[in-house]
């Protein structure tokens, strides 16, 4: 079954309504819901764990959890937040099984990248590297908490308060983690040979 191409209108109400209909037996609406969130979720997982096969496994488990769960999302939580929360929890479970301990708060790293580069103007900014390996390497160089926040912002397009709720972290902490992540990524990805600035 081909994944349908759908317009990117992910209002919370629409997602919740689609899920409700699916729970009541309309199998086709699930494809719409899936198409809407599959890329963002997959890219989030790939960026976070750096391992495509693990990302695929967790991705599948996340959706199957959603399918098998008889519950509907809590009213106070957006579907997207709920979906990413499931994915995050599945990934943490996998890491625990593997005995992997993600780096926690990296004080040294944040001190280094607390301030943005004193680049002059947007027009004079250096270009950013575009190849996948460099992007992934730059992400991998971030502490896990910063990487997670950045990826949730980039691929899930969640607001800071939503990220704070999802990760059970104060909003100010999320904000500073994002700032450190942006500063560091910009330094790591600075590519003097790039001609144009990504819009």
């Amino acid at each position, binding site marked *: *079954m081909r994944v349908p191409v759908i317009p990117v209108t992910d209002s919370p109400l629409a997602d919740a309504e689609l899920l409700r209909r699916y729970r009541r037996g309309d*199998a086709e609406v*699930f494809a719409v819901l*899936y198409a809407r969130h*599959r890329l963002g979720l*997959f890219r989030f997982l790939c960026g976070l764990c750096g391992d495509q096969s693990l990302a695929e496994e967790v991705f599948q488990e996340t959706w199957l959890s959603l399918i098998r769960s008889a519950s509907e999302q809590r009213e106070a939580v957006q579907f997207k937040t709920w979906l990413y929360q499931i994915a995050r929890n599945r990934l943490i479970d996998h890491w625990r099984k593997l005995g992997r301990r993600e780096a926690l708060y990296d004080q040294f790293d944040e001190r280094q990248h607390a301030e943005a580069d*004193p680049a002059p103007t947007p027009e004079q900014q250096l270009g950013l590297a575009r190849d996948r390996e460099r992007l992934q390497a730059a992400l991998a160089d971030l502490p896990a908490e910063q990487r997670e926040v950045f990826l949730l912002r980039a691929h899930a397009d969640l607001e800071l308060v939503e990220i704070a709720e999802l990760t059970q972290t104060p909003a100010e902490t999320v904000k500073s983690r994002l700032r450190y992540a*942006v500063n560091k990524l910009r330094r790591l*990805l600075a590519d003097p040979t790039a001609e144009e600035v*990504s819009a």
Partner: protein
Amino acid sequence: MTSARQPEREPGREQQLLEHFRQHTRDEPSATLDARILAAARAACQAPGPSRWQRLKAWLAGGGRQPRWSLALAGVACLGIGLSLTWRTLQQVPPAGLDAPVEAMTYDAPAPQPRAKSAPPPEFQPRLAVPAAAPLRAEQALREAERSAAKVLAEPQRSLQRLLELRREGRAADAERLQERLRQDWPELDIEAELQRLERAR
């Protein structure tokens, strides 16, 4: 200079970087993975929902994480204890109207006697005997006391009646002795009033 401009440009930098990652990240789930997930979604939609018994079993199993059997067993144990205590209580308190031997009245006066003023009525008799099977000691003692009280209560009436007869027969000395004994045994008893009542009841 830079610190004054930085706060203004930070949202721009952030947005620029976010867009950069969005545009240049090419990871995508495979078609096989998509198909597998969508097929699972269709199958789950078509499959009938779990029955109540299956849901209960799933709940008791605790989803494989934390079995809830202990909770269920604890509930059953509490119920059993409650029922047991209730049954014991019912057995210990014999209900009225059941087939229990009734103890006969021991009051042996020749005729029904009016009640003494200061004495409990003679019909205060134990009506039900405690089944020999399982009386409590305290309840048995109470019933013994009731029987004793019944016998005791019969006595003044009996002596009063005898005193009345002695007076009628003219046996003053015997009557006087009996009256003295009554006074000693029941100092609160108004002997003359009781004799008058007995006289009127005849």
